[in-house]
């Protein structure tokens, strides 16, 4: 059981900065994130995009902002449970919470700070009616262990980096046969990867099918064939062991929607005094919350987190009075 003072759900910029403000009050933090890396939307959706409204940074790349925050919070030694989704919450008799992830990791804390942004990043699934029946029976949306595909026949769909990178990786001596199916002739992924795919197609290592789309799936129990339509050509039926539709991730509110919190328009309602939710001890900061006048800005999330930890302090130390201290006077005293 991981124990901490504030359990932060979501390791995006606001979740990360919460560690700093909590640390100034000598509160320890642990973060859970469903992504395997920190940074939230900043790392998953737009790491190379400049942000212009972070005070004192005329421009900073979203990825760099995450790195800088990690540097800033390092003295407070936060713990991380990455690549796991916070699924359930229970309250203990001593007024604490236990949060369990989809992989069964348990975390105990007096305070829960939900900094979940737009929610859990989940795979975008093509709208093929039979897709669900083949999930884990030949369809994977995320490659976890490439060895699974050794000597198998694999069809990959998508035009972004993950589709390109896995097509290249699996075609280089792992899978028996790799096809890359994309609806267009141009790709969203890095130019180097696109060039590599083109070269491998010429060398016969990859069956590259552009202007094409998988539209039908067949199999008795496991997936056996995919049917591909190609612009101005006959349909192709391919025998496959696996189809990997790799179309990126999209956020969904996810399990926290069922935590008994008041939800309005896909966001958690909070009191702006301390960003507390309707459940005592559970707070919500950043894009995941809503209140009159709410703006979904990183900048506002930082402010929210700062006020929130004051209240969290009170729950950890009901008998102590907290006084605002300036970092210019006291510096940053890590753990």
């Amino acid at each position, binding site marked *: 059981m991981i124990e901490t003072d504030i359990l932060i759900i979501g390791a995006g910029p606001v979740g990360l900065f919460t560690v700093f403000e909590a640390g100034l009050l000598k509160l320890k933090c642990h973060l859970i994130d469903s992504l395997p890396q920190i940074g939230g939307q900043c790392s998953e*959706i*737009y790491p190379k*995009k400049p942000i212009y409204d972070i005070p004192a940074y005329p421009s900073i790349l979203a990825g760099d902002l995450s790195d800088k925050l990690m540097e800033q919070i390092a003295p407070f030694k936060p713990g991380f449970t990455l690549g796991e989704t916070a*699924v359930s919450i229970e309250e203990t008799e001593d007024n604490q919470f236990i949060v369990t992830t989809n992989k069964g990791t348990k975390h105990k804390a007096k305070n829960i700070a939900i900094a979940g942004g*737009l929610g859990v990043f*989940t795979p*975008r*699934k*093509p*709208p093929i009616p039979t897709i669900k029946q083949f999930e884990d029976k030949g369809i994977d949306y995320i490659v976890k262990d490439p060895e699974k595909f050794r000597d198998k026949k694999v069809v990959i769909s*998508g*035009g*972004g980096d993950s589709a390109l990178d896995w097509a290249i990786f699996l075609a280089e001596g792992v899978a028996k046969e790799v096809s890359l199916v*994309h*609806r*267009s002739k*141009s*790709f*969203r992924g890095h130019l180097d990867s696109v060039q590599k795919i083109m070269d491998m197609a010429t060398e016969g290592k990859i069956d590259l099918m552009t202007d094409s789309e998988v539209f039908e799936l067949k199999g008795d129990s496991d997936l056996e064939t995919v049917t591909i339509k190609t612009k101005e050509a006959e349909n192709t039926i391919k025998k496959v062991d696996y189809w990997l539709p790799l*179309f*990126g991730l*999209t*956020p*969904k*509110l*996810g*399990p926290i*929607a*069922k935590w008994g919190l008041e939800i309005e328009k896909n966001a958690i309602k909070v009191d702006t005094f301390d960003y507390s939710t309707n459940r005592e001890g559970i707070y919500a900061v950043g894009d995941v919350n809503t209140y009159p006048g709410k703006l979904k800005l990183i900048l506002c999330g930082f402010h929210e987190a700062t006020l929130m930890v004051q209240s969290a302090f009170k729950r950890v130390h009901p008998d102590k009075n907290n006084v605002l201290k300036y970092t210019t006077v006291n510096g940053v005293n890590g753990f």
Partner: protein
Amino acid sequence: MEENIITVTVIDREGVAHKLEAPTDMNMNMMELCKSYELPVKGTCGGMAMCASCQMYIENDKVTLERNEDEQLMLDEAWNVEDNSRLGCQIHLANEMDGLIVRLAPEVDDEDDW
């Protein structure tokens, strides 16, 4: 027409037409306009042409069907794409769009598995 205000019609996923007054001098796009009227457009990526949640079908000739490069690449990986599909976030409101009619594309990524 009032200065810098145009009228556009957005047909929602239930087929209901909403006639909206749209300012053209506020650097707004169609995704933002829909959101400002609380129509069910998510705009997950905030307008960077990186999610396709604001896909809409252009129903008359008040705006070009030509897509920019990022928009095209995103639509290449989106669902229910038609010849008249565009991303709302890439359509910047301008006076010549007065009378524009759009229809929201179906939402397919909203299913919750939890």
